[in-house]
């Protein structure tokens, strides 16, 4: 078994023992199914609240696809926050704690170490996304309206790429900074800025388009032009971030 597999296995064991394998999927499931459930119960909720007599509230009933999109935007807001916070100390934590000394004094490849860290974060995150998204789809079908499952799959796969990118950025920052807070702040600010600039200047090939493309895939079943370009650029950026992470990691003294 290669070093990558050894470290990856240890990471999986660690994320299992510190319950990340339980609470992160739970957060994604809860966040997702909240949307169809609140849509379904909205009329009752409104009825229960005391309104002045004669108030007329007209809310267009959202479609199934719109409900799923709401869940996606929750993932993009709170889900990313949760993932970044969960993995912000991935490298810097081991460095600060001191156990990195015992690991790096053995003939361990810096690249494999960083790669294993990223892969384990990706494993937890994508499983959480999958479970959460499928649960959202199920409740939406049951309570709100039909959404083709193929659209769910394609948009989830596209959105997964965005998560890969954010996690690669997080791991890179974590091997650069000792402060986990700095890592979280810069990773989240970076993702937010990328999205803002992308929509401000209509950069079609930007990775920042991915969340909105995922939404379009749900709503319309197809994405904008620039889809392929932004996918390719995202994959390339993931590679760049990981290579940078290994490079930064190697250049820094372990202690």
């Amino acid at each position, binding site marked *: *078994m290669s*070093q990558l597999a*050894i*470290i990856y296995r*240890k990471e999986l*064991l*660690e994320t299992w*023992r*510190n319950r990340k394998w339980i609470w992160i999927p739970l957060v994604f499931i809860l966040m997702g199914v909240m949307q169809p459930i609140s849509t379904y119960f909205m009329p009752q909720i409104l009825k229960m609240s005391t309104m002045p007599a004669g108030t007329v509230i007209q809310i267009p009933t959202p479609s199934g696809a719109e409900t799923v999109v709401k869940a996606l935007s929750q993932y993009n807001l709170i889900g990313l926050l949760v993932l970044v916070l969960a993995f912000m100390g991935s490298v810097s934590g081991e460095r600060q*704690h*001191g*156990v990195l*000394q*015992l*690991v*790096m*004094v*053995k*003939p*361990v490849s810096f690249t494999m170490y960083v790669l294993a860290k990223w892969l384990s974060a990706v494993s937890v995150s994508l499983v959480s996304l999958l479970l959460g998204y499928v649960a959202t789809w199920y409740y939406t079908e049951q309570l709100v309206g039909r959404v083709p499952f193929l659209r769910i799959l394609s948009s989830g796969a596209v959105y997964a790429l965005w998560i890969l990118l954010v996690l690669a950025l997080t791991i890179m920052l974590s091997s650069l900074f000792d402060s986990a807070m700095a890592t979280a702040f810069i990773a989240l600010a970076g993702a937010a800025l990328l999205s803002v600039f992308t929509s401000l200047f209509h950069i079609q090939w930007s990775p920042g388009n991915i969340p909105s493309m995922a939404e379009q895939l749900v709503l319309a079943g197809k994405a904008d032009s620039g889809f392929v370009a932004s996918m390719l650029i995202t994959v390339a950026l993931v590679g760049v971030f990981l290579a940078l992470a290994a490079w930064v990691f190697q250049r820094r*003294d*372990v*202690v």
Partner: protein
Amino acid sequence: MALLEVTNLAKSYGSVEAVKGISFHIESGRCVSLLGPNGAGKTTVLKMLARLTSPTSGQIKFDVPHPQDVRSYIGYLPQQPAFHEWMTANEFLEYIGRLSNIQRSEVLTRRDKVLEMVGLKDVARRKIGGFSGGMRQRLGIAQALIHRPRLLIMDEPVSALDPVGRREVLELMGEIRQETTILYSTHVLHDAEEISDDILILVQGQIVVDGDLPGVRMQFQQPMVKIQGEVTLEPWHSVWARIPGIQLVTGSGAWVELTVEDLAGARNAILQSLTEQNIPVRSVEFGLTSLEDLFMKVVKS
């Protein structure tokens, strides 16, 4: 050729020169202690040898079959070893052993062997989070030995331990030195005298003494007279300082130490001074300076 050859090794942190271009070598099979006061740069030197910190300049050469990644040949015990607290001792040693590119079956036998050696066999299935300081130190030694290193580097292996733990670790080191070369840092001179073959004294980033223990003793040891009085002996310091052959008068209160160049010549003069001046003496001891005296001398100079 020596197992380890260090040439002009230097490390600066900003404008602070922690290690100022030191050169030394370590022969295979020796137990070498790196002595020095706190802040002398001992830890920095050891971390550079373990490839955890990169030198600002200088060379470190290992005489090993595959010098591309010398980390395979080094076992390292940091001053305060930190582990994955959520792992058991067994799991941690297996993890570290596998990272050293050893086959799984061999790691398992090796793991049991080192655990038995350091006396942690009974707690092998317990979480490291509940280990005491002494157990951590021994687990640290176990992980450093798991891949049969050629050189075992230990940073202050006994400093943080209580007398019992200290004794245990020293005995363990006595066993380990039969199999592998050891380089360890300490500021406890007594330990260095007890188990090392060679000593290196590092003061302010520079090596001031380097040699095998008997040689260093021979070179630096001087005859010395220790006098204890009934009252303070300070008034007579000047009397002794005037005796020819006495190099140094140190001590305070009822104790005084006279470092002597030629004991045969000075012995009578010292004894005479005691009777002539009617000094209330309790004990007089003629002996040799210890490593501690040497250490104090080089650190202060």
